[in-house]
């Protein structure tokens, strides 16, 4: 028990976190730099990422081309910078689409319970019954390959997690007396759900969503790698690795640098997610 800590505001807790949790700071720096890279890629990239130059194809890393060039002679460094756009967009879009579907489902199922809950959760169970990447692959195959179809497929297979998490906290919150007293006043159920239940039950979902951010980037890259996601000329890290599949044993830089970018971004996103969990969940206290 530490009575004084309970009174800290969110911003003070964030300050504490930055001071004491080095890894959170690392995650924050990574995330912010990738965001900056994505925003300014057109200006900071030394070469046009799409410019084909067969004279310099498969050149090793040098002062001219920091990360070397690929099979068409395109500058890998510039392509990695531009790829940050696709990947960040992937993470944001998939997580927010999944939340957009998952939150209403979880809220309604948890609040009404009974048969409504039963039907909604059994539908969600269908999605959860498939191995994690198999369902998106199947959906993308049905919709036709392409970045946006892949993102849609990922969001659809992701939403049941959020629905389930929100549902369980809604079930707890709806028993709180302030919800009961709103019901006693005869308030509209939609108002009760949006005003009283939702704001008090989102924390676990937000925590989960922030941790998933990295995983969705990874999943999207995987889909691109097997040809189900982004199509050329979209610049995507998974796609870059995929296109160097047959040559990367000799020309290692064609796969190494896009892979490194995926690794660093996903790692940073996970560290950030851990930090956000500490920030929003006062029950979770790490040993300092």
């Amino acid at each position, binding site marked *: 028990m530490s009575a004084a800590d309970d009174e800290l505001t969110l911003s003070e807790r964030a300050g*504490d976190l930055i001071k004491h949790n080095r890894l959170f700071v690392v995650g924050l720096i990574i995330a912010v730099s990738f965001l900056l890279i994505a925003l300014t890629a057109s200006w900071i990239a030394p070469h046009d990422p799409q410019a084909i130059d067969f004279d310099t194809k498969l050149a090793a890393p040098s002062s001219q081309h920091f990360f070397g060039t690929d099979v068409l002679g395109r500058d890998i460094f510039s392509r990695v910078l531009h790829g940050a756009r696709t990947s960040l967009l992937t993470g944001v879009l998939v997580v927010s689409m999944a939340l957009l579907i998952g939150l209403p489902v979880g809220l309604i199922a948890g609040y009404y319970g009974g048969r409504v809950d039963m039907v909604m959760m059994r539908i969600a169970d269908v999605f959860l019954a498939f191995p994690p990447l198999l369902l998106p692959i199947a959906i993308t195959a049905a919709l036709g390959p392409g970045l946006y179809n892949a993102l849609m497929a990922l969001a659809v297979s992701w939403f049941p997690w959020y629905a389930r998490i929100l549902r369980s906290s809604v079930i707890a919150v709806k028993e709180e007396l302030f919800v009961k*007293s709103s019901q006693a006043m005869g308030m509209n159920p939609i108002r009760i759900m949006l005003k009283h239940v939702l704001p008090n039950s989102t924390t676990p979902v937000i925590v989960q969503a922030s941790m998933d951010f990295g995983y969705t980037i990874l999943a999207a890259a995987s889909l691109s790698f097997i040809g189900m996601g982004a199509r050329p000329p979209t610049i995507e890290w998974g796609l870059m690795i995929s296109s160097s599949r047959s040559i990367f044993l000799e020309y290692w830089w064609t796969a190494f640098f896009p892979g490194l970018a995926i690794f660093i971004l996903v790692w940073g996103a996970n560290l950030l997610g851990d930090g956000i969990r500490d920030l929003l969940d006062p029950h979770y206290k790490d040993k300092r």
Partner: protein
Amino acid sequence: MSEFVLAVKDLHVTFRGRRRDVEAVRGCSIQVRPGEVLGLVGESGSGKSQLSLACMGLTAESGEVSGSIVLAGTELVGADKETIRDLRGDKIAMIFQNPMTALNPFYRVGDQLADILRVHHEMTDKEARSALEKSFKEVALPDPKAALSKFPHQFSGGQLQRIMIALAVSCEAEVLIADEPTTALDVTTQKQVTDLLRRLVDEMQLGLIFITHDMSVVAELADRVAVMRQGEIIEQGTVADVMGHPQHEYTQLLLASVPMLGDKKSTPPCSGFLSQDARVEGDSFLEVRRLSKTYPTRGGVVHALKEVDFRLMAGECSALVGESGSGKTTLAMSLLQLLQPSAGQIYFEGKEISKNERKALKEARRNISVVFQNPYSSLNPRMRIVDIVGEPLLVLTDLDQATIRARVIASLESVGLSAEHLQRYPHAFSGGQRQRIALARALVLEPKLIILDEPTAALDVSVQAQVVELLNELRERKKVAFLFITHDLALVERLANRVLVLYQGEIIERGTVEEVFQNPQQAYTKNLLASAPRFESFQKRIHQS
């Protein structure tokens, strides 16, 4: 070797915080002799629990303990963990407020208790079980042998508290710390537990520290009293000294706040404006006819409410009295259709309200407000006070923003808060203030009836007294009817003029407060009245000791 079995000297417990350090205990000294009960009295946050945890060596890691605690000749402050762990459960034991959570629900009672004895006293399983059986007999638990192989949920709260005491007894502890051991129990059970503790202290020469906020229990049970406030002991001495001649004004306030039967400090309630004759037809505005609520179970059905009949008169304050599980809250919830009754009708101003009668139900809900027991859960933590109190107006009426705001302020002022509190969030308020906010929300629609579900149960005694005062005042001024649900008879006497006694889902006795309290007909009501703390016996006990 001193004569004290536990001697605490100049104890400090400090928690290092970010903004400031919190000193939970500041220089407390207490002593307990064998065969003596020390009543440690204080309200929530006074540091009494931290003091007792320090005696058990259970202070949280972030806390720093300094001073001296000598338990049966061993110094605890600065002692290594091994030593303290050996003493714990051997020389000193503790029982907690809520016996329902003190035992692991997954294991049989015998298995988990025998485990403790095996570890601490190197007994075999057989020895441990027979020791437990013996102490179960000691604490008068029915059928001690069978009790060993039962699960915790098969016992009532009072029985579980007995089991926890039995564990302390079979450990042959010399000091027992009881942290509000009766607060979670019904009045009739409370009395049994305190009687049991007193007997054990006398027979086994235990030293007992009895932590409570209830002065009337202390007067019954303790030999000496220590009053704690803000981490300090402000008064200490024999019961007769401290309670008979309280020196500190806080002690005086605590004593004055204790609700006790036969101590009518306030004016007799509901004087004047209401008709005493309950049979006047025209006046009843809420009528309940043969209301039942049943729950199906594997073995048949459980009757939470059995054909309950009653009516409320305008401006009247009725009390619904019963112990936990009697169906009080089920009844309150059913009145507003928050629970669907299984059978029976409810009429509000002559119109039936039910799920199908939407218009009548809406009208009824606008005229009936509820205040719940726990003010910590009844206010949405993410909303400002102005929005919480104004919400009923915003949702149920067509008033404009300015009018709503004015009425919110008026409502807050009528419960003793002011406009400066409007923009704050609930966490900035204490329990008593929160209950005032909940009352302001109930009043803002100017209802005809307010249902109060144990509105003071979660509050400290001195705050309780303020809330009761406030309720009395509001009833006089606003002429609003109250349905007051409680287990506390002293509060009934102070607030209500009519009383309904609910027992196992049935109303077994009803009438004016005088009729029922002076001349109870049912054995249950008699028992209930006999268990409640009484002003005369309190006075007698203070002066004789």
